């Protein structure tokens, strides 16, 4: 049952790409302005988001357990996990940078996993309250996602710069792949979630 207040409830479909409104009917499947395919809501939005989110959650565990990079100094290797790198920064009296990395590589992915999970629960159980706040939360999640790539870029720079053979070397660890996958999967999950689903259940 779709609420009468939404555009779809009144017989309109909005194009995903150009935002053009057109009247819902059997024959017009293409947007009159840009020629894109029209869907009332993103197709299979709920199922896709659940699948992407679950795989991201599974990968989040190895991303935090395994070393994200190994720093070799004079032949002695020293593996760093994500949290280990932050603690090293705090010990080096670089608290602001440590906070930045903490936010970007631990809090943001966690917030996205939990936040999108809550949004999915909201849609599934048709929670009635605070639709506006949920929508704001979705926007924050969608905006903030790309900043988690910070750690990956930092590793790519360190790996290319610190490469002095046996003297000093940085090698990327298995967690880097897992973490990159978490970031990409949660970005896709945020994209496949249709925030209008929140509003469809409001009366």
């Amino acid at each position: 049952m779709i609420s009468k207040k939404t555009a779809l409830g009144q017989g309109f479909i909005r194009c995903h790409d150009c935002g053009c409104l057109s009247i819902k009917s059997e024959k017009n499947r293409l947007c009159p302005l840009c020629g894109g395919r029209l869907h009332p809501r993103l197709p299979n939005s709920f199922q896709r988001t659940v699948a992407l989110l679950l795989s991201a959650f599974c990968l989040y565990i190895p991303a935090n357990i395994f070393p994200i990079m190994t720093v070799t100094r004079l032949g002695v290797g020293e593996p760093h996990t994500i949290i280990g790198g932050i603690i090293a920064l705090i010990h080096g009296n670089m608290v602001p940078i440590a906070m930045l990395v903490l936010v970007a590589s631990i809090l943001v992915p966690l917030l996205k996993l939990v936040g999108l999970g809550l949004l999915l629960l909201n849609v599934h159980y048709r929670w009635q309250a605070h639709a506006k706040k949920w929508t704001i939360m979705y926007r924050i999640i969608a905006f903030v996602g790309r900043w988690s790539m910070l750690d990956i870029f930092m590793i790519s720079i360190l790996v290319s710069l610190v490469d002095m053979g046996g003297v000093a070397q940085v090698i990327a660890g298995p967690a880097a792949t897992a973490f990159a996958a978490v970031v990409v999967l949660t970005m896709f999950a945020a994209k496949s979630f249709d925030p209008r689903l929140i509003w469809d259940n409001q009366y």
Partner: protein
Amino acid sequence: MQRPRKQSIERTFALSIAGLILIFPANLMPLVGIKMLGGAKDGTLWSGVVALFEEHMWGVAILVFLSSILFPLLNIILSLLISAHLYFKKPHRHLAHWMRWLQHMDEWAMLEVYMLGIIVACVKLASTSELKFGFGLYAFVALLIITGMLASSLDKVLFWRKIGQLRK
């Protein structure tokens, strides 16, 4: 919600030309140099990708390549193509496709995140080694500003409306 922007097409056109010029030094010239225990090394956008690839981290390498080199480049090229066609009022049958790709790609061009990555990496290295900032970094910062301005000057509603008008 978006409010209409002044001279959106002209500005997007000009900024994307500037971006296209800047993207070459930003990609090819060294961003940061390092001196450590007698050895010296320069880092470019490309060398990070290559180093990751050599360590068989091809997944991460491809992701870094896409988000720091390919997508920013495509982003600028597509803005240039679209705004040039709209500026000279020349219809093109792929205009709507380009605009759609541009919108989907927007999120995946992460130059500003890369900049933060450079800063964090420099802070980590500063205690143990000597750092030198290359010309590429200045070009990179300029490119960053240009892409930021590009994103804020591009009026999606206006662009779609103009594309729609050209189709008729």
